[in-house]
């Protein structure tokens, strides 16, 4: 039995459009990413050394120790989202960093894992990641404090 032309046209049309969209990142600069049609630039850039710049949040505890704050303190369960949120605030400057610091402090105040925490700090640090895992855990230079804020009472 002859097949109507439209029966063949739709699959081809959809296929060509979808594959065209998927391959369209090849016509853009390779580092320009999008969703859902990605150029998949993750881990593709030339990384000549293991120097690692990290923006992070820490909490000061009553015993004087410092605790690293996990992604949930930044309102996400995704570590990369947390890193992006910190990086964006730091790039935007003092006011944005202070605002984020206050938001984190408010979450820390409600988090029993950090009970009694007195202050939150946003820090920028640089490490040599390979040296770090070989035992040399000191940052490459003095950490830069981006924001400091008190933890409100729970």
């Amino acid at each position, binding site marked *: 039995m002859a097949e109507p032309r439209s*029966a063949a046209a739709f699959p081809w049309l959809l296929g060509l459009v979808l594959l065209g969209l998927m391959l369209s990142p090849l016509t853009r600069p390779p580092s320009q990413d*999008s969703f859902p049609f990605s150029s998949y630039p993750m881990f*593709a850039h030339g990384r*000549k*050394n293991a120097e690692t710049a990290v923006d992070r949040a820490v909490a000061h505890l009553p015993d004087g120790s410092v605790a690293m704050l996990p992604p949930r303190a930044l309102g*996400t369960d995704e570590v*990369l989202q947390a890193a992006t949120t910190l990086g964006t605030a730091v790039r935007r400057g003092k006011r944005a960093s202070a605002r984020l610091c206050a938001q984190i402090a408010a979450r820390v105040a409600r988090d029993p894992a950090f009970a009694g925490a007195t202050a939150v700090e946003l820090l920028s640090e640089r490490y040599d990641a390979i040296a*770090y895992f070989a035992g040399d855990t000191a940052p490459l230079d003095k950490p830069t404090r981006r924001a400091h804020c008190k933890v409100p009472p729970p």
Partner: protein
Amino acid sequence: MTEGQAPKTMPEATGSPGPVPEGSFVRAARAIDRWYRPALPPERLAALRILVGAFSTVYLAIRTPQLFGLATLGGFRPTGLATLLSGPLPDAVVVAQPLVALALGVAFTLGLAYRVTGPAFALALVWVLTYRNSFGMIFHTENLTVAHVLVLGCSRAADVWSLDARRAARRGRPAPAPSPAHGWPVRLLALVTVAAYLLAGLAKLRLSGLTWAASDLLRNYIAYDNLRKLLLADWYSPLGAWLVGHAWIFPPLAFASLLIELLAPLALVGPRVARVWSWLAWSFHAGVLAIMAIFFPYPLLGLAFAPLFEVEKLPLFRRLRRAR
């Protein structure tokens, strides 16, 4: 028409003197069309709908608290369709959209009112995940799932093994036979999988050239990624942290990874090659999980590669096969 049969140009039916000789272009076009639109059993497409639909719905359900949290996250940097927005959505919409997508996902998976819920879920998933990816971080674990749901949503994936099919059977409609309408979506799903891996390989070549595989680049990335996670108090891979002390391991690992991505199109050649490539690609993701603590659930559960196989024969679908 069954797989392998070409639609005939029938001169005898029109009374013309004989068959018109086909040019090589036409023959090639017909061969490509036969490959792209094979007559496959509707159960295979339905099985893919159930697997991909269930995964996407559960994924959304697990992510729902985080999707709600986008209302307070800040740092809105729209991508894809979200660039149409002038700013973040109101809180109520941020909360409502994953719930709507979840409801559509359940209907999609069960094959309920599929002509509407199929495309609707595909669009909802694209939108919800595009919005989630609009806060400065693109999650490359989600692209392939979304593309697969788009294909399935535009196909007749609920002709069998669905609530729609059950209702149609009660009304006396006969079970559908294998047809190209059930074949092309399966082929397109496979093409989409292959394209995604190929693109990832090409991105490495475009951004770093062969240096990507021949230098310390992968080692540096693994060290950097694990340290970043450790300092942000998240899961990292102690194995990866230990391995970065052994530089010689990384060029062969990088070369193998690049090869797996660039050779992805070979998976379309036939089932044997597809099996070998799928195992290699799966192992690649298992390796990424082991040494970078990055979990790609879609390929690790085998779903990325499912369109390359006769998934309807999985033991998982035994009850549905018997009920036919």
